């Protein structure tokens, strides 16, 4: 078996210098950060300049208190008010006021404007007109301010003490607490759980895909330059395959450690601190098993390949199988206990990612964990065995890719 290590060392040190590896090493975390963090960051980024909001107040009761509420509640980071309420035109002439306001909005000197009807106290209808009604933050903020203002006014009109009113209309702050089996409670929301599960699944995908691709490519190269014949005359097929998988696992580990280290250095407290060590180890176990399982598949699928196009095809099929669990990501996070989720967890190819998604969410039962672990491990061993056969019989095949039927015959003969 020492030859397997020689192969592993070569694969590791040659591939670690390859462009594909370096790209995935740096690009993947960058992409993940970009895809998951940036939109949230951008969406929740505070304004830096005050926005002018116009108001045409036909009731005559709203403009002044609304201006006060907006000023109190929403401030820019530098302390200036976020929104400046600007009364427009004469309350009596609505159409003239709208014309002026429209032109101001279109000239971009005003974000938008609110039209408050005469009967606002009875029908609670207010119009917000803007060029950019997709800006949820603005509409949401004006909406909440208006709602509070009108409710308060209505209650006061009923003769209730403004102090009590304030108390009654205090908005609800819904905190979501995740309960763990151990009885510990921690504050975390749907988003966080989803994100954690997602991150781990992504890590596994990227590991499998980069190594898988590197593996198929390296086999293709050895095949097309016929180095494989020298290799096969120097060591057994099993040693060669073991060496390749070992070397690639080394690459995968390097990749993972690098990312963890980078995450820690950047103090991007991603998902890792949010879950207990036990779950983390379990997740890592599933990642490793899933990795080995797919490595075997890549070997088996990649060894009959003799052109770049075929390699692409094979990889894309495998990617499709690999990403099936993403479809279920939402279901798993929302309802981790449905029969569907449980059944899917017992399909070996999907099992690792399903369990990785379930663990941060709600720890599956011990029986399920043990059974799926055994199942995946056995499948991995079986796949390795088949992969070894396929590898030995097809690595020397050039030209036409064997059909599945031919392949079965060959494997039986090997």
């Amino acid at each position, binding site marked *: 078996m020492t030859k397997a290590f020689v192969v592993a060392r070569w694969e590791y040190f040659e591939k670690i210098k390859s462009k594909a590896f370096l790209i995935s090493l740096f690009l993947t975390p960058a992409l993940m950060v970009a895809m998951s963090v940036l939109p949230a960051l951008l969406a929740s980024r505070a304004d830096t300049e005050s926005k002018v909001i116009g108001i045409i107040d036909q009731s005559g009761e709203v403009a002044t208190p609304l201006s006060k509420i907006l000023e109190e509640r929403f401030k820019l980071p530098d302390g200036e008010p976020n929104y400046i309420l600007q009364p427009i035109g004469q309350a009596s002439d609505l159409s003239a006021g709208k014309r002026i306001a429209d032109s101001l909005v279109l000239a971009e000197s005003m974000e938008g404007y609110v039209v408050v009807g005469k009967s606002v106290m009875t029908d609670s209808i207010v119009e917000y007109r803007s060029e950019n009604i997709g800006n949820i933050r603005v509409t949401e903020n004006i909406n909440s301010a208006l709602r509070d203002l009108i409710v308060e006014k209505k209650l006061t009109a009923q003769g209730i003490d403004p102090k009590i009113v304030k108390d009654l209309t205090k908005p609800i702050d819904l905190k979501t607490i995740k309960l763990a089996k151990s009885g510990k409670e921690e504050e975390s929301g749907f988003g966080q759980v989803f994100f954690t599960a997602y991150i781990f699944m992504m890590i596994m995908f990227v590991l499998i895909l980069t190594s898988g691709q590197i593996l198929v490519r390296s086999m293709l190269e050895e095949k097309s330059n016929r180095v494989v014949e*020298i290799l096969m005359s120097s060591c057994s097929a099993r040693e060669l395959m073991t060496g390749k998988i070992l070397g690639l696992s080394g690459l995968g580990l390097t990749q993972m450690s690098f990312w963890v280290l980078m995450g820690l250095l950047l103090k991007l407290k991603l998902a890792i601190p949010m879950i207990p060590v036990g779950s983390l180890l379990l997740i890592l176990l599933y990642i490793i098993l899933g990795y080995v399982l797919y490595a075997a598949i890549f070997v088996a699928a990649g060894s009959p390949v003799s052109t770049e196009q075929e390699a692409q095809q094979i990889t894309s099929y495998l990617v499709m199988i690999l990403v099936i669990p993403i479809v279920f990501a939402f279901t798993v996070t929302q309802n981790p206990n449905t029969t569907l989720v449980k059944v899917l967890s017992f399909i070996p190819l999907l099992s690792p990612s399903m369990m990785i998604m379930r663990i941060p969410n709600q720890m599956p039962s011990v029986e399920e964990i043990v059974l799926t672990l055994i199942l995946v491990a056995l499948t991995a061993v079986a796949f390795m065995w088949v992969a070894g056969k396929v590898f030995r019989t097809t690595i*020397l095949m050039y030209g036409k890719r064997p059909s599945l039927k031919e392949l079965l015959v060959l494997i039986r003969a090997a």
Partner: protein
Amino acid sequence: MLNVSHVRKQYSTVLAVDDVSLTVQRGQILGLLGPNGAGKTTTIRMILNIIRPDAGMITFDGKLFDETIRNNWGYLPEERGLYRKSTLLNTILYFASLKGMEKNEAKRRAYDWLKRFDLLNCFNQPVEALSKGNQQKVQFIISILHQPHLVILDEPFSGLDPLNQILLKDILMELKHQERAIIFSTHQMDQAEKLCDILCLISKGRVVLDGEVAAVKNRYGNNTVHLEYDGDGSFLKMLASIKTAHIYENFAELILEDHSSPSDVLREIAQKVDVKKFEMSQPSLNAIFLALVGNPGPTEKTTEVTQ
């Protein structure tokens, strides 16, 4: 050293190798000859345990294959290539370590060989920066660096310029004198004729001719004429006294019918063309090859079978 006896290999419908036997001793060079698709490469792969024979036995010094034997042979495959991005020295050292060589020793020998092949100054360059011929030299180094007892070279001369062909031939003779067993396959019969001690000619998976080169030639008798001439020689193949004629530009190798006398033939020929040289000799391997594996046509300008 190596004894292959009655091996057979069938690929689904094709019988690639059928009952092939051959033996090489230390200090011998065996020429494995045969047309394309004859089963040479399959035979080599079976010897190297890359594929397993369906029947028959292969022994090394009387012992069956075991993993340790792998370190004792070296192989230069027919179609060549190496890891393109890796450096020369690293590539050589990798294959050396796969053969169980210690690193420093491997490095020392690698430098020696690179120097001999005039590649020392590019030891740190990626393989892809080298020309095809130079890559082939690197592959050859890989196949012999670990001083194997059995060296198997598939078409070692193709792709080398004449200078390097001579260098390679010298090295092969050295290896022979170091008591190594060498098998090399080739299409170039003149090459085989000069280098080999024994021959094994395979056609359609079967051995059609084997034995020592001199004995083989003797077996094919002395009724061969080497003729050099000026003029149009196309009439040669029509002569009744000539069994087969391989005609080249101003040169022909003629095999006479058993009853015909050489002097009659010479007289006949001299009437048509200007004879420069007329020599009775043993047949060339080329002629034997063509006689055995099917004649592609006597007027072909070159009978060298190319890939």
